[in-house]
């Protein structure tokens, strides 16, 4: 007997990886996500890829948004994705990257499994809309 209502909420991890200490953008994103009704876990600064994986797995997030402004995305993002696969968590996590990413790198990241890359000046609504439309369905 369970007549109770399901209460599904979109859970996001907003992550800062590596030595990049610019987190104003991550804060703004986190707040916008909150106001969109998402539950946002913020990683804090200077996390190693394995820390991000640990957080994403334990928090069982639907969306992992990695903010990188240092240009190190080509080394850091693959490590995160590998880690997610190791814990069997890659398939139902929507991985997004935000930051300054050259076009050719963007193609490469998407081949790796990043769902979308959002550059500077992307309207917040666009990112939120993208998440709403692409958040993985879970059993």
């Amino acid at each position, binding site marked *: 007997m*369970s007549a109770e209502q399901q209460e*599904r909420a979109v859970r996001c991890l907003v992550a800062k990886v590596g030595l990049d200490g610019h987190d104003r953008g991550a804060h703004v994103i986190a*707040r916008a996500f*909150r*106001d969109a009704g998402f539950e*946002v876990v913020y990683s804090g600064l200077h996390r190693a890829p*394995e820390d991000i994986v640990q957080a994403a797995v334990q928090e*069982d997030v639907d969306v992992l948004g990695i903010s990188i402004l240092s240009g190190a995305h080509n080394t850091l993002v693959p490590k995160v994705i590998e880690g997610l696969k190791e814990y069997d968590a890659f398939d139902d996590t929507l991985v997004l990257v935000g930051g300054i990413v050259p076009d050719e790198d963007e193609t490469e990241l998407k081949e790796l499994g990043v769902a979308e890359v959002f550059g500077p000046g992307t309207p917040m609504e666009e990112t939120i809309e993208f998440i709403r439309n692409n958040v993985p369905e879970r059993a």
Partner: protein
Amino acid sequence: MAGPDAPAFADAPTLSDADAALVEDLLSGSHRALARVITKIENRTPGYRAIVSALHEHTGGADVIGITGSPGAGKSTLVDKLAAAYRERGDTVGVIAVDPSSPYTGGAVLGDRIRMGSNVGDMDVFFRSMSARGQLGGLSTATADAVKALDAFGKDVVVLETVGAGQNEVDVVRTADTVAVLVQPGSGDDVQTLKAGILEIGDVFVVNKADMDGAQRTVAELEEMVHRREGGTTGRNAGHHGATSTASTGGGPTKGSRDDDHAAAEGGGSGDAGDSWTPEVLETVANSGEGVGSLIEAFDAHAAYLRESGEIETTERRRYAEEIRTLVRADVGALATAEIERRGGIDRLAERVRDRETDPYAVAEAIVGPIADCVDGERADGDRDA
């Protein structure tokens, strides 16, 4: 164990195959499965009850510690240091950190994880943030179920962290075996507000940021309050634990009483069994980790006290009774809500009452009557069967 006279509970919810596999994975140590089970508990995904049901028999191994205190008191930082200290002695740790969510959008920024700096990369500290979604009294059910998942997973210690700001949160920490209330120095008014509700539930009081001005005064205020509460509620244990009051004059606040408690615990019911627990007041500096060792000792002492005195059985019974009541109330409430909907919704019923067509008692009778009849009918059937 159901005796011959006890009704059999054959109605345990049945697990779907996928959920049975999930439970199996959790029990065999899959972090992913543990995380997913907690998500299902949080979302109340259909089938989650069967999962928690299946986990129940595997629980009971963990020490569950609740930590509460006003925002900014340093709960998350302290929990981080506690987790690291437990890990150092070989214990595995689970943490559930509850943060408020917006009543308007339902969204939340769960920030406690930022403070978990000492344990990043260590998978044997399982840290999970939960938001207080607009659940009517359901938050404590959800957190208690999440604690069960961590317990069944095999965590030695489970820490439940929550802002102590309301009945909901109080209900949450009450599901822990040992409750620590965190206070920051110089918050005289803070201590005043603690009186209402939270003071009663503390087994250990912690003055965090003890290197700040006013720490000693806050310690003294808490000591005084603890003893006033003691005098007010239980007059019987004045003798043995009277040591605490003298200890507060020294530099290390309650060292004496802690040793006492150890002695009492190790004494193993040698006439001390009737003694009740006197809350300790400790000082910590979570940033540097100072005092964390003593705090863990205090937690251990309280756990030992619960076991030796037999108090643990009483608290567990009380806790499970509360869980049963909450669930039954919620389920019966849901039945009633559905019935109200079938009768045109609460607004229409209210309007009819306003028009003097009917009255609230008649409406309640009309809604609950059929449910009561069903229950009575079932009971009559049962009696005939027996």
